[in-house]
């Protein structure tokens, strides 16, 4: 099976057994790999109504056909599970080197099943697979564990691990790899914590089979050359995603003080330029990436080494908590990495708590005596630690802002910035209708990476509510997740304008199967419909209401900055949703119709 390792590793943590299975070529044809393969396994193998933290839930780590090959940015792996944060579909992507290493060890995917009685880690050295005791690693931080395992096993092993927050089942615990890369969203680390799986260590020495080596090498050369000739390369290499911070403020999209506004008056002190000068020491790339967005930093002020902060972290732990010193943001980032928390959800939860405190909805009685205020780094650090330890208010915030609003009461649900129970990532969208629609309809909750449509809003008019905007969101929701099926990063396309047809061409040289980019997009649409059907199956009252934006977006106008006075009314967001459902071939409640499922070749999987 060209392009694939050709095997799946199944790990049963309940009885401590492992087995390999051949990768079904028919599955590769229908779902490609990566998140497509994972979505199929989740839908067909995890029983309806499974407890996300129980033994019936599974965690699927799935590479794509391009993963580990000489394609720019081909180092992404998907991690899918039933989300303990939302109760629906969770799929998080992680870069670094572990994706490639897993394929070199001879596995396209790992499926974790069951629950271990005691802490374990999975050891893979090519064909040698062992479930090993991890009692001495339990309770330790992610970065500490990675360093210890590398010291113990050897530098060549790639490590993924959870931190104490995952062990304590904080609902947005992440999985950390390569000293600062995360599968961050949806609580994938929480499920590993519930399974008592502390870490994965993998080393491989095998080759990935290529159908047409000459054609593959030629196309690889073309793709790398195109990246290196891109005008955007130099800036991207220098600042990575941190370069977005200034732009986001200029367009009024920078989450500030719990998304109260889209402009942080002290944003200049968080810019990519300031960060590069103050703390960055090394450009750190994921596998085979010519434009490393990873900026490895050393904060002298706090005496920590950390990868980042990248844009999302600066947005949510910086502007959203009103921290104006990049070294404080770097330290908050370090704490989240070491403790194993998603920085996006953590930043939201902290900002939400601060706003509740400032409005008098909660007090020091709720916070264990801690005074909360925007702009106070010590309060932010303390809350991160409290969340990871689930101490007093941390035990409420550990379940996310949707839950916290139910506990704190008042009108706090209006400014709990979430969709489907997942906190929003770094783009204030009250003057960006297609970006807002992207958040409303994203398949995991309020996350930007399925459709980063804000540039389209700017291009065609930011007040415009039109069918074109719904169409653009759908188009992006097929293109961007397709990268997560291929096992490659999207940024070479987004930032360096790498030709999408190249991906189809190199995939053909790799696998020997003739498919156009449009053929691949059809697979991506199939997966989008399958994950929507998964939500409908798992959540009893699932439908339109679950696609509602945070009330703040339609109840309050942006008070300051370039988008001052903007909001998107309830009528307008519902109009966008109508247009979106119609174009998707879903009913008015947002459920895929039988006709759509038939068109998507899904009726043997999804009963409708």
């Amino acid at each position, binding site marked *: 099976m060209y392009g694939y390792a050709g095997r799946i590793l199944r790990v049963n943590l309940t009885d401590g057994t492992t087995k390999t299975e051949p990768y079904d070529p028919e599955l590769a044809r229908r779902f490609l790999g990566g998140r497509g393969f994972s979505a199929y396994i989740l839908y067909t193998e995890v029983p309806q109504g499974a407890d996300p933290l129980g033994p019936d839930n599974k965690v699927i780590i799935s590479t794509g056909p391009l993963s580990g090959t000489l394609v720019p940015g081909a180092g992404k792996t998907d991690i899918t599970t039933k989300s303990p944060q939302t109760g629906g579909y969770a799929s998080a992507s992680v870069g670094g080197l572990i994706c490639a290493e897993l394929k070199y060890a001879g596995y396209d995917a790992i499926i974790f099943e069951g629950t271990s009685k005691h802490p374990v880690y999975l050891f893979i050295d090519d064909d040698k697979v062992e479930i090993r005791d991890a009692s001495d690693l339990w309770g330790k931080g992610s970065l500490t564990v990675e*360093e210890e395992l590398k010291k113990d096993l050897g530098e060549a092993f790639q490590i993924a691990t959870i931190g104490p927050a995952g062990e304590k089942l904080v609902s947005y615990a992440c999985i950390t790899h*390569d000293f600062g890369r995360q599968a961050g969203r949806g609580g994938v680390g929480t499920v590993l914590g519930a399974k008592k799986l502390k870490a994965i260590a993998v080393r491989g020495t095998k080759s990935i089979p290529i159908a047409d080596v000459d054609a593959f090498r030629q196309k690889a050369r073309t793709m790398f050359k195109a990246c290196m000739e891109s005008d955007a390369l130099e800036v991207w290499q220098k600042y990575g995603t941190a370069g977005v911070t200034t732009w986001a403020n200029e367009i009024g999209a920078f989450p500030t003080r719990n998304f109260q506004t889209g402009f942080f008056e002290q944003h200049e002190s968080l810019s990519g330029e300031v960060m590069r000068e103050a703390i960055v020491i090394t450009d750190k790339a994921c596998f085979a990436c*010519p434009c490393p967005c990873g900026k490895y930093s050393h904060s002298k002020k706090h005496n920590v080494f950390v990868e980042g902060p990248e844009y999302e972290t600066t947005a949510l732990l910086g502007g959203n908590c009103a921290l104006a010193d990049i070294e404080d943001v770097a330290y908050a980032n370090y704490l989240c990495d070491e403790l194993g928390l998603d920085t996006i959800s953590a930043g939201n939860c902290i900002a939400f708590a601060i706003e509740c405190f400032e409005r008098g909805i909660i007090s020091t009685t709720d916070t264990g005596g801690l005074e909360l205020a925007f702009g106070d780094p010590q309060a932010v650090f303390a809350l991160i630690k409290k969340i990871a330890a689930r101490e007093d208010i941390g035990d409420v915030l550990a379940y996310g802002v949707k839950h916290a609003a139910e506990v704190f009461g008042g009108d706090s649900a209006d400014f709990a910035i979430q969709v489907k129970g997942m906190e929003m990532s770094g783009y204030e969208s009250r003057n960006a209708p297609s970006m807002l629609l992207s958040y409303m309809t994203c398949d995991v909750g309020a996350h930007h990476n399925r459709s980063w449509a804000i540039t389209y809003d700017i291009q065609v008019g930011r007040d415009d509510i039109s069918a074109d905007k719904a169409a653009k969101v759908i188009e992006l929701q097929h293109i961007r997740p397709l990268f997560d099926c291929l096992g490659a990063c999207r940024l070479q396309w987004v930032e360096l304008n790498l030709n999408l047809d190249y991906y189809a061409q190199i995939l053909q040289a790799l696998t020997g199967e003739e498919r156009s980019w449009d053929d691949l997009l059809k697979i991506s649409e199939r997966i989008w419909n399958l994950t929507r059907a998964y939500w409908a199956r798992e959540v009893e009252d699932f439908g339109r209401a679950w696609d509602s934006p945070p009330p703040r977006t339609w109840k309050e106008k942006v008070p300051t900055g370039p988008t001052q006075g903007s909001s998107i009314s309830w009528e307008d967001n519902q109009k966008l949703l109508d247009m979106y459902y119609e174009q998707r071939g879903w009913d008015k409640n947002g459920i895929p119709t039988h006709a759509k499922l038939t068109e998507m070749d899904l009726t043997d999987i999804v009963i409708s």
Partner: protein
Amino acid sequence: MHLHADSTRCSGCRACQLACSLHLFGENNPKKAAISIIPHFPQPGTFEVKTCKQCGTCAEVCPVGAIHKNERGAYYIDSEECIACEACVEECPEGVIFLHADYETPFECDLCGDCVEVCGMKALWIE
């Protein structure tokens, strides 16, 4: 003439190793590459790149004279003549003569330059 590396520019992506293995063996496998990248994380947070300096130590220590120069002036190990004693591997001052379980004999950089082409950070060059 040899392959140079500026370790301070390396981002650890390993595209060079894939280009190398595709050239040497027609396979996609960084473990079959003749260039070494050693990460030093979490501290001091740097990459260390090791390349063949074409110093000739390998040829000097080879007991059977199996190491010759190719048309680009690079040393290479003739796998027909090599007796797999691994003396060159042990004596290489840069540690850039490599072994892989699939092959009986070691291999080293032959100055093809493919790694230079895919290094986005321009950390590699030949002169």
